[in-house]
């Protein structure tokens, strides 16, 4: 086991909201091109942990993070780290679809525009490719200039995923991306994620146990700020090591 196998390595990550310790020393590594599901009851720290991976917590006042998190061997909490560049490398999708109040095209091209891309033809190609990979191209190809807000929730969420894909990230973080969607839209996003795994490393927070067991390669179980157990999903859901994991996945609490 050599360290460079991992795309993300985190060691002894503590996070405090003011004085409250929300993460109590989490060490967790991620293999490239795998889907890892973070599960656990509300308030266990899984979303907080997810947000440390692209420093989204920096935006919340009075947050302190200790420990180290490395992306491709580079400390992302180093003072030299450019957080804008980091968030391109490590994109994020949220629970509520949050398209900008622009056209579908401009939503997806947003990251390319702010990075100064001028080549219109290349931009068209990237927008189409991203929408295709996000499995929403056929839904929107005839109305790219319409407002993204006119789409259904499931389509909006896939456009948001296309927006992340357009800037060619290495890692995609998803925070309960389907919990606001109907089962059909959720299923579309699930199968899309499994396809995206060929190119990207995916970390997903989910409250849906079946979703975690269906799509992820690894599962990490959090409880009260601690990482209780991390392992192969097929092992976690058939014979976990820890009783707390067993109790949670079997619906005994949470």
């Amino acid at each position: 086991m050599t360290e460079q196998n991992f795309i993300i390595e985190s060691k002894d990550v503590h996070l405090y909201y003011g004085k409250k310790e929300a993460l109590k020393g989490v060490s967790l590594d991620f293999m490239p091109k795998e889907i890892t599901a973070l599960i656990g009851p509300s308030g266990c720290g899984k979303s907080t942990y997810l947000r440390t991976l692209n420093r989204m917590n920096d935006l919340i006042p009075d947050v302190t993070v200790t420990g180290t998190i490395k992306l491709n061997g580079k400390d992302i909490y180093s003072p030299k780290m450019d957080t804008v560049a980091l968030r391109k490398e490590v994109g994020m999708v949220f629970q509520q679809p949050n398209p900008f109040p622009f056209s579908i095209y401009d939503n997806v091209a947003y990251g390319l525009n702010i990075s100064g891309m001028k080549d219109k033809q290349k931009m068209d190609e990237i927008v189409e490719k991203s929408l295709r990979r996000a499995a929403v191209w056929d839904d929107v190809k005839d109305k790219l200039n319409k407002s993204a807000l006119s789409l259904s929730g499931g389509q909006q969420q896939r456009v948001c995923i296309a927006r992340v894909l357009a800037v060619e990230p290495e890692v995609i973080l998803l925070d309960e991306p389907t919990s606001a969607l109907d089962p059909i839209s959720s299923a579309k996003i699930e199968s899309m994620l499994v396809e995206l795994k060929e190119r990207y490393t995916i970390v997903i927070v989910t409250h849906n146990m079946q979703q975690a067991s269906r799509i992820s390669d690894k599962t990490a179980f959090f409880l009260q700020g601690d990482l209780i157990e991390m392992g192969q999903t097929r092992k976690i859901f058939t014979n976990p090591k820890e009783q707390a994991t067993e109790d949670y996945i079997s619906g005994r609490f949470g």
Partner: protein
Amino acid sequence: MRKMFEEELQELHARFSEMGMMVNEAILKSVKAFVNHDKVLAQEVIDHDHLINEYELKLEKKSFELIALQQPVSTDLRIIVTVLKASSDLERMGDHAVSIAKSTIRVKGNKRVPEIEEQIAEMANIVKTMSDDVLDAYLKNDSAKAKKIAFTDDEVDQHFKKIYSQCVEEMKNDTDIVEGATDYMMVASYLERVGDYVTNICEWIVYLDTGKISELNSNLDE
């Protein structure tokens, strides 16, 4: 929700245990009938077999329902899978009890060999103990005990071989014995199969307890 599901699992467990007791009774009776040449008792085993088959169907139906509606994982899933798999083994054990009972009815009037019948009674005793013990190991979820039971299947196999060669010898010496000895061989092979099914159930108990699917006492090297 969880409480309802747990009650249903408990119910499944109880029904499986009942089926196990019915099968054990069938084996006990078929063996007793064979040893005592009791045609009436043998007929009783045959008549009651459909109850065992109905139990298996009910257990299967309930298991499929729980899987579909509750999406069980880990221990819950293993409880259901164990019932599903082991109930088929129990049902087959019941079928062999019926076959032994049928031989008992047929054997009437044939020329007998008391020494071989004694051997069969001894073999039957071991098998009966195994099938009693395996139910106990299931109820206690005791994989160590299950492994031990599977091990005693060797004794059953040895008895089978001994009875087999004894029958062949007797048939060579006395052609009048051919019909009776053929039945002896068949009864011994039914008992041997029952021992194999008990071993299968032992494997499911190990799975239930540890999550490991294993092959206990493989026949490959025989």
